[in-house]
């Protein structure tokens, strides 16, 4: 009689033998494709979902996470940039640059824009704000498969410029907007995790 443990051990042995016989290609091409960008956004969404599912998350949604925003406000901030970057990516997908600008102060970034967008979402429930992040991620992901690779990589002026030099907008591609979104949201994810550890202790 073959036990499950025996099957387990036997398969693990076979698996190791199988893997040891595989030779990986010597040359690896690091290249951006719709799939790699889709994965980056999906991975980000999975990390958010793990956080949102945590028992503590909804319970502390109204606590201040920095000097001016609650945890829910911060989610509203993330949602507003998720929507904005998706909208700008759609414009880039049309083959043109973005015709408006959000102005970034050297210190503090787009303070007035951020405050306005968070305020717009203040009356919404946390679930609605989270739903917006989910929907915007899916819309951005859909866009990635709707355009060809050259268009994903073509750089244009985007709708962000330094307050001190409004005539010099940032130059990015759709792929660059995905990267901006990932960096921005990971920054906030990590800050939330650090905040939670300092305040409540323990694991996620």
């Amino acid at each position, binding site marked *: 009689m073959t036990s499950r443990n025996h099957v387990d051990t036997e398969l693990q042995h076979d698996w190791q033998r199988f893997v040891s016989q*595989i030779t990986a290609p010597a040359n690896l091409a690091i290249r951006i494709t719709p799939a790699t960008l889709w994965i980056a956004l999906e991975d980000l969404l999975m990390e958010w979902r793990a956080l949102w599912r945590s028992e503590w998350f909804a319970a502390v949604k109204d606590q201040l996470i920095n000097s001016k925003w609650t945890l829910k406000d911060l989610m509203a901030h993330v949602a507003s940039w998720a929507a904005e970057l998706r909208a700008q990516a759609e414009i880039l997908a049309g083959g043109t640059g973005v015709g408006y600008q959000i102005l970034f102060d050297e210190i503090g970034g787009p303070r007035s824009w951020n405050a306005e967008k968070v305020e717009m979402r203040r009356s919404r429930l946390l679930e609605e704000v989270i739903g917006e992040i989910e929907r915007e991620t899916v819309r951005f992901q859909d866009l990635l*498969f709707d355009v060809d690779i050259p268009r994903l990589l073509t750089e244009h002026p985007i709708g962000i410029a330094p307050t001190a030099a409004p005539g010099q907008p940032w130059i990015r591609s759709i792929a660059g907007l995905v990267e901006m979104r990932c960096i921005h949201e990971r920054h906030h994810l990590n800050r939330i995790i650090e905040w939670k550890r300092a305040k409540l202790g323990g694991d996620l």
Partner: protein
Amino acid sequence: MGDGQQLPLEHGIVSARMCGTMSVDASFERLYRMYAPVVIGWLAIRVEPHAVDDLLQDVWTVFYRRWRAWQQPAELDTPEARPVLSFLFRTVHLATKAHHRAWRVHEPIEEHHLADERTTPQRLVETLALGQCLEFAKTHCSEVDVAILTGKLAGISARDIARTLEISEGAVDHRYRNTLGHLRQQLQSVKSGGST
């Protein structure tokens, strides 16, 4: 591979990268050499043979971009932890999802040769008892069960598998035991049928 050929531990490479004694590119290359065969193994079981090469590049591109800004929580800074392998497992899972999505959108207009030369892992699988089990699992188990099986075989923790598949750790263990049960029956029927 001989017994004396001990692969470097992931921990050593990550530590060297984090403290700056190894560059991003050199450490990436070491991790690629160490884990690319595992990634190919996972992909060979989960996608069509012709897609393995492409998805391999996708997985390592995604990892490279993360590796440049890799941050490791202090609790994972132990010799036993393998966060890179877990990240690769999750990325393979997502690459498979992206592949199936792209297939639905674009693939019907393209043709692939079934006798593609890049089917080495597939041929290897067929030479092992594992191949029979995996073939059985592919046709009789869900995609999630196959992911759990291949993750477990490669030593990914139930916790990391659960996070990747967005199910509970209990469900991972339960489904793994069930799959092993199915495979045990399959192995017994193969043996009683006289197959090798």
